């Protein structure tokens, strides 16, 4: 198996699984958001890696260049990054309001308060 050639994809899988694990296992709400972020970023890495064309140049038109990398995934990921930023911002602002209402950002303590009320 071509370990070096697939290096980017290994990074993608490791990042994705770490993010996914963090999202499911962390009890702290901010850590959960970090997990989601890691998960989303791994997908960005994946898309950008698929854009690479062997021997291709940066997709900016110039004389004397025959082969360019595929610019489309870059553009798609630009949109996906915006979506990622928006969901992170929304998540963090929700955490701020949860902190104001419950006085804690630990999931167990929040749940405990809900059971009591």
């Amino acid at each position, binding site marked *: 198996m071509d370990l070096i050639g697939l290096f980017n994809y290994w990074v993608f899988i490791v990042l994705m699984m770490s993010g*996914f694990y963090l*999202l499911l296992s962390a009890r702290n*709400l901010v850590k*959960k958001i970090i997990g*989601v972020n890691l*998960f*989303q970023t791994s*997908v960005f890495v*994946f*898309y950008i890696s*698929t854009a690479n064309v062997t021997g291709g140049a940066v997709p900016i038109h110039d004389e004397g260049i025959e082969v360019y990398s595929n610019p489309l*995934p870059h553009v*798609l990921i630009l*949109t*996906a990054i915006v*979506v990622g930023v*928006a*969901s992170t911002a*929304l*998540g963090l602002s*929700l*955490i701020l*309001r*949860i902190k104001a*209402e*419950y006085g804690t950002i630990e999931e167990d303590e*929040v749940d405990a308060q*809900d059971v009591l009320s």
Partner: protein
Amino acid sequence: MIEQHAIILVVVIPLLAAPLCVLLGRGALAWGAATAAVWSSFGLALYLLDRTLDEGVQRYMLGGWQAPVGIEYRLDVPGAFVMTLVTAIGAVVLPYSWTSVRKEIDDHRHHWFYACLLLCFAGLLGITVTGDAFNLFVFLEISSLSTYVLVSMGRDRRALTASFRYLLLGTLGATFYLIGIGFMYLMTGTLNMEDLAVRLAGPGPDGVTPVVDTTTIRAALAFLSVGVSIKMALFPLHVWLPNVYAYAPSVVSAFLSATATKVAILVLLRVFYTVDGKAIAFESLPLADTLVPLAIGGAVVASFVAIYQRDVKRLLAYSSIAQVGYMVVGIGLATQLGLAAGLLHLFNHALMKGALFLAIGCIVYRVGQTRFELLRGVGRQMPLTSAAIVIGGLSLVGVPLTAGFVSKWALLDAVLEDGRWVTASFILLSSLLSVVYVGQLVHVLLIRRRPKDAEPVREAPLWLVVPTLVLAAANLWFGVVDSTPSEISRTAAEALLQEMQQ
């Protein structure tokens, strides 16, 4: 000009009206702008549905770029059907929101509320028209992000945690969808759904096996199915739904329960039927044998859980999970009858759940609570609201003369035609369970007496009651008089199966 650009206008009008709402600020102006935008979308959607039924698929090239290079908007019969449903529900919910929102949400947040509602609306409509797989992801996120904000505006602080959990799972689902699309793009080099379908059927890298039979595309399908299943709350990926419906403001519960999961089901149809035909999803993968048991299991389990709920909104939320199960059974069968039944139930369920959640909103307006022990006998003092609840409940159970009966009958017919006796018996079992929970609801509201020391309640204001009764009456109208939805759903099923064979 409007005829030519109608497809894009349906989406663009609410999208542009959203920032306008924020600029208009407090009070009636924002509400007026939102209502005008939603009603004009509704008019355009009716016009487009008519045109799609007459002339077939409608196409629109964004910015004049030809597909597959540019983004193509492509409205087929299933898309137009769901679009009409979403806009119709919006058109009923907005007049209702005027009174309900003033009661449930602080004054300084009203214009933000309408802006988010319009964004959510525009996102859902965008999903129904787009013919581009990545564009669909963008619209999915527009609608989801605004939904999280809408849910967090609920009065109870648990709305915040419900919204946060929905945000985590929703983002996860959307990212799964993104990975799936990435795999498909990697194999085919295109994002246009029709073009994807053509290229997936073509020869793969080794020149012999078609692209659909490669492991990459199978992995892509796995990611896409799981991602979309989270969005539509298919059992066992439904955990986010009960709290979201229970703690969101009344208007939002009604709008979401009637539209959001329905549009997610349309995405599932796009993935399985429009993008990659029957060959992979239903022949070489045992999709029917995994989706149908999961869906029917979900229907039974969720109905069972609904019986033990002591909060009206949570009860209805669990019943929604059960009903999503019915729709997916129809879709998973992959027969024309099954698809038509699934789509018809999608339409009818939006009518009944919309009516029920709006009626509960009327009760919340007067009582301020949704727990059973505080609602005893309330229905006796609110006759019109209870009429809507009874009609909606009967339709939910599937009693003859209601819309729910028509679609459940069609579903049973489709299941039996496929020879699945076990599934059919489980559908009946789940219906019996729904008799129990609807019975409990009616018992608490109408048969129990109001405690002596409780404050007397009056019928809700007309602004709330009229939209509720309109939706309740639609349940009877489409159950007895008008069979247009069944005809459209049959045409839609035909169109989807044809797309698959091309």
